[in-house]
């Protein structure tokens, strides 16, 4: 046996253990915040935090001093713990729904209480509503503004995409296909604009947008977000168009098409996946942005602002903050998955 044959499997194993280590460092915090976003309010404040949300809660019911004594099985201490002593069943139902994420109707509770005549205490279990925190978040966050804010965020993102892909795409095509004096300088000036801090534009934009009636308005935000987004689109589309051979357009010209038709028929279809990636990039920029949105909105915040505010006051409601954070993260992660190849190209390709 040679040395090589001996070492290779060990080396590979060590390598994969190393990779697993990196992956766990990345995913463990994500895992906990996802898990927390499903936990009931009561469990979210237990220590140590349960690793996974309960699919089912076990209860016991008996007679108490003031009415009925409700106990819930605590997974951390592994025992039943009394949580409520009341004879008002609606109060009990509200508590079970809001603190334990187990929605229950009053007849169902009455049914369990009826069983008290034959057995004491009564044991029963209820299914938890795993999406309860998300539902609550969308109902209460930003005093009911979460869903309108979500719609506004989508509007802003869509307008940003339209502005930046149309304006930026044209310029990207010019940079890819033409050699002209000032090309390099212009291309980098665009990059400079992107690097310029967004917060520095947002502040003076308050006055400018107020003058044209777009302060506290999705259109105004889209106009501001497009500044950074156009620059990015210029660079992405330029690299996309550079990758598509000019000869295709020339061939179309030979067959009697004009330049515009040649572009539409030959280059555009080939560029579509790349343009889609540029659009998703613009979406992510608009979706995630918070500072400018904080500054440029007042009564019509975006979703990012609502989530930011929920997290900022999170001490009372960690599971709601987690749910809001995850609702915010979901589109970002999905789009990142679709454009992961382009992100790497962008980062690698920015060097020029």
């Amino acid at each position, binding site marked *: 046996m040679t040395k090589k044959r001996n070492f290779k499997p060990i080396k590979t194993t060590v390598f994969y253990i190393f990779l697993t280590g990196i992956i766990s*460092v990345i995913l463990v915090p994500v895992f906990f915040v996802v898990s927390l976003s499903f936990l009931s309010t009561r469990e979210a404040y237990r220590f140590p935090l349960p690793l996974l949300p309960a699919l089912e809660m076990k209860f016991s019911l008996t007679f108490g001093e003031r009415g009925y004594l409700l106990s819930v099985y605590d997974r951390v201490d592994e025992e039943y713990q009394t949580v409520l002593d009341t004879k008002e069943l609606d109060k009990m139902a509200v508590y079970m729904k809001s603190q334990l994420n187990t929605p229950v109707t009053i007849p169902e509770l009455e049914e369990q209480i009826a069983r008290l005549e034959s057995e004491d205490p009564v044991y029963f279990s209820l299914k938890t509503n795993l999406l309860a925190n998300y539902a609550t978040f969308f109902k209460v966050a930003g005093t009911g503004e979460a869903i309108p804010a979500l719609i506004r965020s989508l509007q802003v993102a869509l307008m940003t995409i339209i502005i930046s892909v149309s304006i930026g795409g044209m310029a990207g095509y010019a940079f890819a296909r033409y050699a002209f004096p000032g090309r*390099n300088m212009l291309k980098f000036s665009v990059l400079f604009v992107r690097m310029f801090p967004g917060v*520095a534009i947002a502040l003076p934009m308050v006055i400018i947008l107020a003058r044209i009636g777009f302060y506290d308005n999705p259109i105004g935000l889209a106009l501001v977000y497009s500044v950074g987004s156009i620059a990015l689109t210029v660079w992405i589309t330029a690299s996309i168009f550079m990758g598509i051979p000019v000869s295709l357009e020339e061939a179309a010209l030979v067959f009697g098409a004009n330049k515009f038709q040649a572009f539409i028929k030959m280059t555009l279809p080939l560029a579509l996946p790349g343009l889609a990636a540029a659009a998703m990039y613009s979406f992510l920029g608009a*979706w995630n942005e918070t500072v400018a949105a904080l500054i440029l909105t007042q009564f019509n915040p975006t979703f990012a602002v609502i989530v930011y505010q929920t997290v900022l006051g999170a001490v009372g409601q960690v599971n709601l903050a987690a749910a809001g954070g995850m609702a915010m993260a979901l589109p970002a992660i999905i789009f990142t998955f679709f454009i992961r190849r382009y992100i*790497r190209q962008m*980062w690698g390709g920015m060097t020029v």
Partner: protein
Amino acid sequence: MATVSPEITSSHFQFWNWNRKQFRSFGAKATPYLLILPVILYYAFFWLRPVMVSIKGAFTGAEGQLTLQNFVMVANDPSFWPAVTNTTIIVIFSVTLEFILALGLALIINRKFAGSGFFLFIAMIPMALPAATVGAMWITGLTAHGWVNSLLLYLGILEEGQKIYWLAGGRATLLALIIILDAWTVIPSVMIILLAGLQNIPPETEEAGYVFGGSYFTVTRDITIPILQPTIQTAVILRLIAAIQIWMVIVLILGFSRMPVLVERIVYYHDELSNLDISFQMANGYTLIVSVVVSSVALLYLLVSGAFKKDVEAVK
């Protein structure tokens, strides 16, 4: 001047006298500029104008007079120097730490392996997460009964009843904490950038180094890293720009004013203290400072990446 080329005559400027060919040739030359014109106009309206307004605002006093008073006010703000030093410390330490670790990881991972696509996607997640989500992640983790202590308990590092009060530390502890949180967000992405750069290096160059008797260490130091230098430059400068503007994670886990940094001050004066007379001027002053610092770094980037090279060279 006498050196005007013979082709350029006055008829060139009287486009109403142009013939078809002249139109064509003008059209061909003008096309790229026409395609770029919308961007230029857009930037004139929505970038240059606000920047001008911002600069003017920074030098304008409460009564509209031209003044340096805003900067005096900012300099006298008790949280100004802490904000400057905090930002500086965070930028220096986080960018350095992130780079050393990311480069190390990229060098170790730099090979073809099964599941690399999946691994790279996982590595992109921290950077893809919105800042508010990252904030939610750490504020729920770092409280005394949060998931970080829970995890340590499950792993047996903490004993029953023991808790670490992460957010109760002094300034140095909190700065270290913020640098570590930023590292978690950033290192995987920087690693991907460097990995992409590494994989563009043709294997022959490194093989040549080994043929001439180089060790892994000398080949990496003398061949790989120098070739990787442009990638490193880009990534470092992009990171610098982002690190200067870090604020949200800090505010979400520590609240306003506990660990002031420059951009946090802008939001603080604009959003949290907006009822004060001076807050608008303060926000303007801080904004100009951040803009100047970031622009300088951005210009440095343009300089090293060859933005000011002659076009002929670049177009080729």
